[in-house]
C-alpha cells in the first residue's frame, strides 16, 4: 500500500475547487458607470461570416446561422441587418393586376416605392368618376338622338319590308296572316280568306294562278326573313360603334389625366391602355351600375367589387419602408412564406380573383432580407421545398397547396411569378445544419455561408472585463437597475459554472439575460437601487429551488433507505458511482450503487443494463472496454476464463454515458481480488483499455449530489469523491461544499489511473509488475492476476473433466 502522503497528494486543493472572478482592477462601482455599448463577445468568427454573407451578392450566398438556442443569434443578426439595410435603397412596390386576355393569369406590376398605393387609389377614383361620367354621357340628348335615329332607321326598314310585302299580297288578293310561329298566306275575296269549298269552286286556272302567287310571295317572305338577321346585326354594329364613340369620349378625359400622371412608367401606361379598351367594350356595366348609384343605391362597395378587374392589388407596399426590408417570419408555413390566394364564399361557392392574392414573407422581403427559424421551416409541411424553389429560381410562384397536391381540379388563379432578390438568413442548431448539409444536396448550393456562433470563450482577465461590459450593456438595454461589481463577479462565476468549466465563460445570452432579469426582480423586491451579489445568488438559488423537487425526492429516497447507498464501511464488489440526471435544463447528481460478480466463464463481462436494453451504446462501450482492460492487463497470453456481471443497483431507467466505467472496473477488480471498497467514497470517471482515467461531464453536480447525501447523514471527515484529474479545471463547486472541504469534513481527490483509484478506495497498494513480470504479493493486482489464473486453470480442468480437484485447490488458494 502506498503511503498517506501519496493519498494527500491526490486531494484537490481548496483553491482549485472554485475560480473566483476578480474585477478589482476595474474602476466601476456599478454597471451604471459603464457604457451602454457592448461587444459581440467571442463571436468574431460568426460576425465575419455574417458580414461576408450579407456582402456577397452572388447566387447561393444565403446564410445559415448555427448555434444552440439562447446564444443571441437572432439579436445579433437583427442588429447587423438593421445597420446593413438602412443604407440600401427601398425596394419596389409589387402589385397584381388583371390579365384582360387570360383572367386566370393575373399579371405582376413592378412600381417604384409608394407608387403601388397611389395607383390603387387612382384606379378606384377612376372607377368612381366613370360610374358617373359614362351613364351621364349615355343619358345625353346627343346620344339618345343618334341612337334613336339608328333604331328608327332599322325599324322602318323592317316594318316597311313586311308592310310592302303585305300590300303587294293584298293587291294580288292574297292575305298575309300571322300565326303563332310566323306567317301563312291565303287567297282573299271581299276581305275574307277563301274557304276550301270556295277555293274548289274556282276554275283550275284561277287556282293555279293563286298557288303561283302564293308561292312567289312565300319565297319573297322567306327572302325577307333571311335578310332580317343581317339587318339586325348591322343595326347592332352601328349602335355599338356609337356606344364606342360615346364611351371613348367619356373615358378619354379621365384616362388621359391618369396616363399623364404615370407617363414615365410604360408598364402602367400599358395597363391603363388595356383598362381603357376593356371599359369601352364593357360600357354597359357602367351604365347599369351608374344608374343604380344615381337611383340612390347605398351598396357602393358591392358596385365597386363588380369592377374589381380594374383595381390594383398592392401585394407589397414599400411606401413606408426605409432602406432594405428585413422580415422576420415567426410562423413560416408554406402559405405565409409563398403567399396565398384567398377565396370568398358567395351563395355557397368559393370565388376568387387577383385582388385576393396575398403576399408571403418572400414577397415582403424582396430586395432585402428574410430571417427564418430553420427548425420551424422544416417542421412546416412544404415550406422548405417552397423556400428552396423560390431562392433557387429567384421568383415566387403562388400555388395553392390543394392544387400542388392535385387535391382539387377546379380552375384557379395562376398568378405571374414575382421575381425576387432576397438574402435568406436561417437560424438553427448545429445539428440541423449538419443534417441538412449531409442529406439535402441543394442545401449546400443555396446556403453557402455558415455563421457559426461560439458557445463559450476563454475566461481570462481581458474577457472577464469584456463580459462585465456585456452585462452593463444588457442592463441598460433591458432597463434593469445597475449591478454592483460583486454582482458582476458573481454572474461571471456563475457563467463558468453553467459551462461546467472554470476556464471558460458561457456565451449563452438567453441564460445570462434570465439571470440578470431575475436578479433585478429580487433587488426590486427589496426596494434596492442596485443589484447585489446576494440578489444574484438568490436568483440562482430560487431558480434551482423551483426545479429542485425531483432532486429532493431522490435525495429523500436515499436518506430514508429506499435507495441503498452506504457512506461508511467497506464492501467487496460494491462501489458508489456518481451519475447525473438531466431534467430539461436542470441537472443534478445522484450517487448510485454498482455491484459486480465474477465467476468462471468465457471472458465476457455482462452489462445487465445492456441485456435488458436499459443501457445506451456509450455505456455498453464503456463496459466492453473493461473486458479489454482485464484481458490486456491480466491475460495477455491466454484466454480469459472469466464471466463477470455488472449492475447499477436500483436503477429503473435508461443509463447512458461511460462516466461510471471506472467505478464499474473498481467493483470488478474488488470482486476478483476480494478486496473491499470503502463506502465513504464515491467515484466518477471513464476508463480506457490501459486503465487511464478520462474526463467526464457534470462533475460539479456529481460531487454536490454525493455531498448532499453525506451532509444530511452527517459529515464524518473521511467521506470523499474521486474524480478524473482532467476534470479539475471544470470545478466550480457550491460554497457549502467548499466550506466543508476547507474544514476537512469532506474531500475531493483526483486520479489519473485505475490503480490510483483502487488504492484510494481500498487503502491497499495496487501493485506494479516486477522484472519477472509478477505483481508483488498482497497487492490488488496480484490478487486479481491470481484469481484470473485460477479461473483459467479451472476452465482447463473442466475441459479435462477433473473439476473436483481444482475446486479443492481453489479453496486452499483463497485461504492463503
Amino acid at each position: 500500500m502506498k503511503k498517506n502522503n501519496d493519498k494527500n497528494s491526490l486531494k484537490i486543493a481548496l483553491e482549485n475547487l472554485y475560480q473566483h472572478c476578480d474585477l478589482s482592477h476595474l474602476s466601476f462601482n456599478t454597471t451604471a458607470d459603464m457604457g451602454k455599448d457592448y461587444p459581440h463577445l467571442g463571436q468574431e468568427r460568426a460576425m465575419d461570416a455574417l458580414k461576408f454573407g450579407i456582402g456577397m451578392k452572388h447566387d447561393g450566398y444565403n446564410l445559415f446561422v448555427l448555434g444552440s438556442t439562447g446564444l443571441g443569434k437572432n439579436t445579433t443578426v437583427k442588429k447587423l441587418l438593421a445597420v446593413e439595410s438602412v443604407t440600401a435603397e427601398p425596394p419596389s412596390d409589387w402589385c397584381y393586376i388583371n390579365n384582360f386576355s387570360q383572367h386566370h393569369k393575373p399579371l405582376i406590376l413592378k412600381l417604384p416605392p409608394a407608387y403601388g398605393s397611389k395607383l390603387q387609389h387612382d384606379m378606384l377614383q377612376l372607377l368612381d368618376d366613370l360610374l358617373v361620367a359614362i351613364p351621364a354621357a349615355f343619358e345625353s340628348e346627343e346620344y339618345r338622338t343618334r341612337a334613336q335615329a339608328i333604331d328608327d332607321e332599322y325599324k322602318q326598314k323592317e316594318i316597311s319590308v313586311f308592310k310592302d310585302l303585305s300590300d303587294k299580297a293584298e293587291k294580288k288578293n292574297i292575305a298575309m296572316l300571322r300565326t303563332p310561329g310566323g306567317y301563312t298566306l291565303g287567297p282573299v275575296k271581299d276581305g275574307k280568306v277563301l274557304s276550301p269549298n270556295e277555293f274548289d269552286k274556282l276554275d283550275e286556272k284561277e287556282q293555279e294562278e293563286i298557288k303561283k302567287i302564293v308561292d312567289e310571295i312565300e319565297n319573297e317572305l322567306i327572302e325577307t326573313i333571311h335578310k332580317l338577321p343581317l339587318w339586325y346585326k348591322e343595326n347592332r354594329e352601328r349602335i355599338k360603334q356609337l356606344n364606342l364613340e360615346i364611351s371613348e369620349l367619356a373615358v378619354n378625359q379621365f384616362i388621359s389625366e391618369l396616363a399623364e400622371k404615370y407617363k414615365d412608367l410604360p408598364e402602367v401606361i400599358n395597363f391603363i391602355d388595356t383598362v381603357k379598351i376593356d371599359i369601352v367594350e364593357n360600357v354597359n356595366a357602367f351604365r347599369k351600375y351608374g344608374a343604380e348609384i344615381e337611383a340612390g343605391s347605398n351598396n357602393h362597395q358591392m358596385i365597386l367589387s363588380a369592377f374589381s378587374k380594374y383595381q390594383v392589388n398592392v401585394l407589397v407596399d414599400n411606401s413606408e419602408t426605409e432602406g432594405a426590408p428585413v422580415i422576420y417570419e415567426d410562423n413560416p408555413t408554406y402559405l405565409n412564406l409563398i403567399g396565398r390566394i384567398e377565396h370568398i364564399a358567395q351563395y355557397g361557392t368559393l370565388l376568387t380573383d387577383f385582388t385576393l392574392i396575398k403576399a408571403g414573407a418572400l414577397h415582403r422581403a424582396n430586395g432585402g432580407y428574410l430571417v427564418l427559424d430553420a427548425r420551424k421551416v422544416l417542421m412546416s409541411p412544404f415550406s422548405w421545398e417552397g423556400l428552396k424553389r423560390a431562392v433557387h429560381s429567384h421568383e415566387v410562384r403562388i400555388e395553392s397547396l390543394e392544387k400542388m397536391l392535385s387535391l382539387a381540379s377546379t380552375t384557379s388563379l395562376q398568378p405571374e411569378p414575382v421575381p425576387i432578390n432576397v438574402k435568406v438568413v436561417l437560424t438553427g442548431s448545429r445539428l440541423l445544419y449538419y443534417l441538412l448539409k449531409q442529406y439535402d444536396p441543394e442545401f449546400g448550393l443555396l446556403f453557402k455561408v455558415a455563421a457559426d456562433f461560439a458557445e463559450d470563450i476563454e475566461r481570462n482577465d481581458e474577457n472577464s472585463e469584456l463580459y462585465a461590459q456585456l452585462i452593463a450593456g444588457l442592463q441598460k438595454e433591458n432597463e434593469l437597475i445597475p449591478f454592483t461589481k460583486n454582482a458582476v463577479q458573481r454572474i461571471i462565476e456563475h457563467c463558468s459554472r453553467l459551462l461546467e468549466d472554470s476556464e471558460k465563460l458561457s456565451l449563452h445570452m438567453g441564460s445570462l439575460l434570465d439571470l440578470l432579469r431575475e436578479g433585478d426582480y429580487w433587488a426590486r423586491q427589496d426596494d434596492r437601487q442596485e443589484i447585489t451579489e446576494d440578489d444574484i445568488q438568490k436568483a440562482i438559488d430560487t431558480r434551482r429551488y423551483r426545479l429542485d423537487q425531483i432532486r429532493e425526492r431522490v435525495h429523500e429516497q436515499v436518506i430514508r433507505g429506499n435507495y441503498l447507498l452506504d457512506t461508511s464501511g467497506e464492501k467487496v464488489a460494491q462501489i458508489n458511482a456518481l451519475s447525473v440526471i438531466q431534467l430539461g435544463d436542470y441537472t443534478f447528481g445522484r450517487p448510485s450503487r454498482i455491484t459486480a460478480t465474477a465467476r468462471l466463464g468465457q471472458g465476457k463481462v455482462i452489462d445487465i443494463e445492456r441485456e435488458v436494453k436499459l443501457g445506451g451504446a456509450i455505456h455498453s462501450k464503456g463496459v466492453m472496454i473493461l473486458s479489454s482492460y482485464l484481458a490486456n492487463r491480466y491475460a495477455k497470453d491466454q484466454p480469459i476464463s472469466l464471466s463477470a456481471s455488472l449492475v447499477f443497483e436500483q436503477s429503473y431507467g435508461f443509463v447512458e454515458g461511460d462516466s461510471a466505467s471506472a467505478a464499474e472496473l473498481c467493483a470488478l477488480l474488488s470482486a476478483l481480488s476480494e478486496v473491499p471498497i470503502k463506502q465513504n467514497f464515491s467515484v466518477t470517471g471513464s476508463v480506457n483499455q490501459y486503465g487511464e482515467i478520462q474526463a467526464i461531464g457534470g462533475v460539479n453536480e456529481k460531487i454536490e449530489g454525493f455531498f448532499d447525501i453525506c451532509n444530511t447523514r452527517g459529515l464524518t471527515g473521511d467521506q470523499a469523491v474521486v474524480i478524473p484529474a482532467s476534470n479539475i479545471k471544470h470545478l466550480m463547486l457550491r460554497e457549502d461544499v467548499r466550506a466543508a472541504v476547507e474544514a476537512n469534513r469532506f474531500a475531493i481527490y483526483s486520479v489519473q489511473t485505475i490503480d490510483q483509484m483502487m488504492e484510494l478506495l481500498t487503502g491497499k497498494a495496487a501493485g506494479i509488475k516486477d522484472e519477472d513480470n509478477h505483481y508483488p504479493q498482497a497487492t490488488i493486482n496480484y490478487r486479481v492476476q491470481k484469481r484470473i489464473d485460477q479461473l483459467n486453470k479451472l476452465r482447463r480442468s473442466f475441459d479435462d473433466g477433473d473439476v473436483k480437484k481444482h475446486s479443492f485447490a481453489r479453496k486452499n488458494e483463497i485461504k492463503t
Partner: protein
Amino acid sequence: MKSKHKNILIVFDASGHTTVSMRIATELAVKMQAGIHALYIEDNNLLNAVELPFTREVSLQTAAKSHIDSASMMQKFRADAENIKRQIEEMALTHRVSLSFSSMRGQKVQVIKNRTEEVNMVFIPATFSTRTGKQQMYKRHEIILVYEDDSPSSQKSLNIALSQAAKKNYQLIIFVNTDQSKQHVDKILRQKGKHATCQVADFSSLDEVILLLQKHTPALLVLPDDSSLVQDEKNLNKLINFLQSDILLVR
C-alpha cells in the same frame, strides 16, 4: 253585354304578345278600378287559310316553310290561349284585379268593333310583324294620343294618356288635326299643369298618319273609339298588324 262596372277588354290572337302589354293593361285596370275581360280570338281567316291544301307556314325565326292544317292550327290556338290565360291570371292575381277569360272564333277587327260598345276600353296588345319587335318594345318611352275633337271619349283619352305618361315618366305626344285643336289641348295642359308635346298632323291621309305613328312606334297609342283612324276596319287592321304598339281604344 254592358256592365255597371268599368270594364277593359283585352284582345289577344295568334300574333304573339308580351307580358309587358299585359302588365300595362292590368295596371290600367287598377287605376281605373275596372275589371278585365281577356278574349282570345281564333282568327277565321287563318283557319280558312290553313284548310287550303297548298297552304304553308313560314317561320319568322328560321324562314322555314312547313305544311300546316287546321287541326294543328287549332292545337296551336289552344296552347297559345292557355299560355296567355296563365300569364294574365298571374298578373291579375298580383294586382288584385277581377278577370274573366274566354276564346272565340272570328275576325279580330270585327270582334273589336263589335265589342267596343260593351266595354269602357279596349286594350289591344302589340303584335309583332317582325322578329325584333319585342326587343324594341322595351326601349320605348313614348305615349301617343290621337286627339281629333273635343268629344267625351277624346277627353277621357287625354286624361288616361296624361295619367299613364305621368305614372311611367314617359313622354306624351298628342297628335291633333287642326291648330284650333292644338290650342285647345295646350290650354287643357296648362290648366292641368301637365307637360306634353302637341303636334298638328294631317289626318285626311290615313296612310300618312299610320306611317307617322309607325315612325314613333310608341309604347302605347291611345285612341278615342270615335277616331276617324279606326272607323275603317282595314286601317285598324293595319295599325294593329304593323304598328307594334299597345293600342288603347277609349269610349
